[in-house]
């Protein structure tokens, strides 16, 4: 099969982490966050980690919405910790949202990109990050002050420290190809919206 060429001159360590271990190792207590999780892998794993909990809005479509939704939620709930977690494909689709987020810079918002370098839901085609595009450098270029890249378990403690500290931050979690944790979750978005608001706002 013909392959796309890698971008010349980009040297990155090969991704070795298994997302089924790496994501829970980074996000230890998802129940402590208000979470917007992008399609598809991160929504599956955050819903699995919380047993489809009401504090997680997991997307099943509207690709590119995740980071912007997390921003709106963080601005609306300045006293709660908000986690926007998504994959490389979704982040690339609306990459300008990183600039919007950097400008607004809510101190209660953390962004995590689980970067497997592939479009895992559609036949595992290479994504641009799998061919050398570096989202951590892009995030820094947009002006996000705290950017951390996790290539191995040794990088995980710093990621956890950043998640626990105040201030906007972007964490790139580089993982190898492979499935996300998955349990049944509601794919009826109006049900997910209503239960999220009921749990948070009581209405």
């Amino acid at each position, binding site marked *: 099969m013909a392959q796309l060429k890698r971008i010349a001159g980009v040297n990155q360590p090969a991704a070795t982490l298994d997302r089924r271990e790496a994501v829970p190792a980074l996000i230890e207590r998802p129940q402590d966050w208000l979470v917007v999780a992008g399609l598809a892998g991160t929504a599956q794993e955050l819903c699995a980690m919380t047993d489809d909990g009401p504090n997680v809005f997991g997307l099943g479509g*509207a690709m590119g*919405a995740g980071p*912007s939704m*997390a921003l*709106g*939620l963080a601005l609306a709930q300045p006293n709660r910790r908000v986690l926007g977690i998504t994959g490389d494909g979704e982040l690339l689709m609306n990459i*300008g949202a990183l600039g919007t987020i950097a400008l607004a810079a809510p101190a209660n918002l953390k962004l995590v990109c689980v970067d497997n370098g592939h479009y895992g839901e559609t036949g595992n085609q290479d994504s641009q990050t799998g061919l050398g595009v570096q989202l951590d450098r892009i995030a820094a270029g947009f002006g996000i002050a705290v950017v951390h890249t996790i290539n191995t378990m040794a990088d995980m403690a710093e990621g956890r420290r950043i998640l626990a500290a105040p201030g906007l931050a972007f964490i790139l979690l580089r993982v190898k190809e492979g499935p996300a944790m998955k349990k049944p979750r509601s794919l009826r978005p109006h049900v997910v919206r209503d239960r999220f*608001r009921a749990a*948070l706002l009581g209405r």
Partner: protein
Amino acid sequence: MYDYLRAEGVTQIAYVPDAGHKVMIDRSLADADAHSIPLTTEEEGVALLAGADLGGAKGVLLMQSSGVGNCINMLSLTAGSRFPLLCIVSMRGDFGEGNPWQFPMGRATQAVLEAMGVVVLRCDAPEDVMPTIRAACSMVWGSGEAVAVLLGQRLLGAKKF
């Protein structure tokens, strides 16, 4: 309009700049109690305001009609999740337009919004504006609908070329 929306509880004002929204944008930038959010593309605003609603906040998305085309698939988030959404759209490719590039999207704006389930209300005279905004707010936050208020070029005036 700005004061009315703020009194309605709007705290997030998101926009891709357009001359038709200059006063609203300037008011939001000068308002220390509201979030003035410049976007890179209008679809970010659709998602932003969905997140605002999850957190119990209200917002408004200001855009030019050309930006409506950038929102199409993102409006599936609004429709599927039944998020309330208020958009105020300054028209191009409309009454008196002198730039031919603006016509394809100008002609399609209302149809595209309606195809994605957004209620369209249109203003072409100054006296229409505030009654329409009040009606839209009631439909959005009373009934949970997605509503776009189109401000026509008969109202705003056409840019000179």
